[in-house]
């Protein structure tokens, strides 16, 4: 082959891997840049002062508390639901899955209204919840659960569907009830996927803003989570707000990564 020809064929062979790499680089840059920028914009001084501000600390504490509670609920109720969706075939299954995805497309504020209109004092089930939710910490948990649940549900369903059904059958023939099979085989075997799902859900819950504000309000120490505290400071103490954002991102980033590594390690 002539040198030119070789060059040309070489080019013909390498453009695609190159294109892939470029695509991934672009994606990563685009998604990371804003995050980096936030940190760049916040001097360490701001970080300190943001954490010095008691309200901010309270907000972070509340965020942790509420998001953890929400995650616990999602884990306890959502995981069996996902298991059912993954292991049984029934009519309206596709519809159910879509229903689970719907909350993702609600503008946060509208989601908040929806929650008010259903669980608020005048809501469809108003009598049921009374006013123990709205403007109370419980309300925050409800809002977070609502927006975060879909992430865990979809991931958990995928994880359970990936299990070898023979494992579940085997467990039965070895004298284990369906419940024991679920607890001792399905969950540990799907460990990784479940962890990832919870991580995503937790992250989303930590970032939730619109629905919480609408449904639970923004009462310092009671319903004011970190994102609300950030929002409240935009108008007034912009730098502190940004710093708080940075803290939040750092926390959830660390969270996601650690859970992923944890999920990978053989349990």
């Amino acid at each position, binding site marked *: 082959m002539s040198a030119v020809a070789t060059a040309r064929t070489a080019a013909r062979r390498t453009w695609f891997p190159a294109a892939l790499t470029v695509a991934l680089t672009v994606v990563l840059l685009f998604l990371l840049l804003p995050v980096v920028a936030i940190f760049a914009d916040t001097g360490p001084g701001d970080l300190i002062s943001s954490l010095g501000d008691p309200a901010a600390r309270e907000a972070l504490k509340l965020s942790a508390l509420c998001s953890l509670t929400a995650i616990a609920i999602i884990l306890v109720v959502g995981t069996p639901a996902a298991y059912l969706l993954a292991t049984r075939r029934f009519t309206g299954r596709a519809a159910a899955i879509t229903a689970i995805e719907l909350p993702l497309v609600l503008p946060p504020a509208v989601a908040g209204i929806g929650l008010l209109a259903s669980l608020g004092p005048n809501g469809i089930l108003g009598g049921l919840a009374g006013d123990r939710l709205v403007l109370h910490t419980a309300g925050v948990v409800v809002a977070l659960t609502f927006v975060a649940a879909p992430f865990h549900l979809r991931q958990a369903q995928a994880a359970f569907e990936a299990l*070898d059904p*023979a*494992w579940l*059958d*085997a*467990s*039965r*023939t*070895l*004298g*284990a*009830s369906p419940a*024991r099979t679920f607890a*001792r*085989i399905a969950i*540990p*075997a799907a*460990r990784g996927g479940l962890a990832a799902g919870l991580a995503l859900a937790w992250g989303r819950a930590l970032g939730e803003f619109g629905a919480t504000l609408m449904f639970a309000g923004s009462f310092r120490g009671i319903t004011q989570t970190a994102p609300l505290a950030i929002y409240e400071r935009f108008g007034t103490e912009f730098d502190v707000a940004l710093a708080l954002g940075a803290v939040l991102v750092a926390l959830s980033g660390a969270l996601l990564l650690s859970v992923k590594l944890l999920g990978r390690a*053989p*349990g």
Partner: protein
Amino acid sequence: MLQVETRTTLGALQLDVALDVAPGRCLALAGPSGAGKTSVLRTVAGLLRPEHGRVVCDGETWLDTDRRIDVPAEERRAGYVFQAYALFPHLTARANVAYALDHLPRRDRGKHADALLERFGVAHLCDERPRTLSGGERQRVALARALARRPRVLLLDEPLSALDTRTRASAARELGTVIAEAGAPTLLVTHDFTEAALLGHEVGVIDGGRVVQRGTAAELAATPASAFVADFTGAVVLTGTARPGPDGTTLVDLDGGGTLTSVERAEGLVAVSVYPWEIALAPAGKPDPGSARNHLAVEVLAVTAIGNRVRVGLAAPQPLTAELTAASARALELAPGARVTATFKAAATRLLVR
């Protein structure tokens, strides 16, 4: 005693099987992929609920769709070895076995599990996870696990298919002893006839959801009930059209050319089955004088020596295989492309109406 009756629709398949197995006996279910073999085992284990069916084990009814009885799988005490063993990936070998022992006090389970692993010679692997075990080791752990609960019935789904030939031979021998010792009725699924013959006291050939023939391996090989069984047991099957021949014989015009004589009676479309070791070869042109009535001019496709025997692939023009001693093969100087005459007795042929 295990009695199974099941009649149900599985996708495209109509499963309709009734069989019984005596304690300590092993019935091998052999048949092609999709025949319904696994489904039968699943019905016995309580993993598949047929539309109509009965499963009775030692007089205890596990399933009776008419009387609305359906004992859940976990209460049936069926020892099931799954097609790919289905060991729990997140548990060690010991934990896999101990999982089946939750009727024992917690502290005894480990000891008990180790004893079982010991019995199958894999005690030293008790702390390994399935991922790190070889096929043969997995099979042993799976067996130990399946026997942990002293099952009332043993269900083995292709227990050897995941093994390579190196381990398969020895694994087969072990499995034989296990089945004998277990003393429970055993259903074994395979799609390899030799395996079925080796491990089963009896073989049930299952195809399209029905048991087409049941008997000892020898019986099936000697008197196959259908072309399928014949082919399945390793016989050569030629297709053709039968017409009455001289003095009570039948002449078969083979598809693609050539005519055979058979002592059996049949007319119309038939399959002719004959075993490779019934077929002798002679140099083209001069067939050896003798009682053999069938002489086919054939071309040698392949010559394969196995031990002191030689398998010769032939085109007649329908493909057919002869088995000779190495000696006679040398004498004939067989080589691909050589033209010879294939000779076999009219009595050696079986006619099966298609």
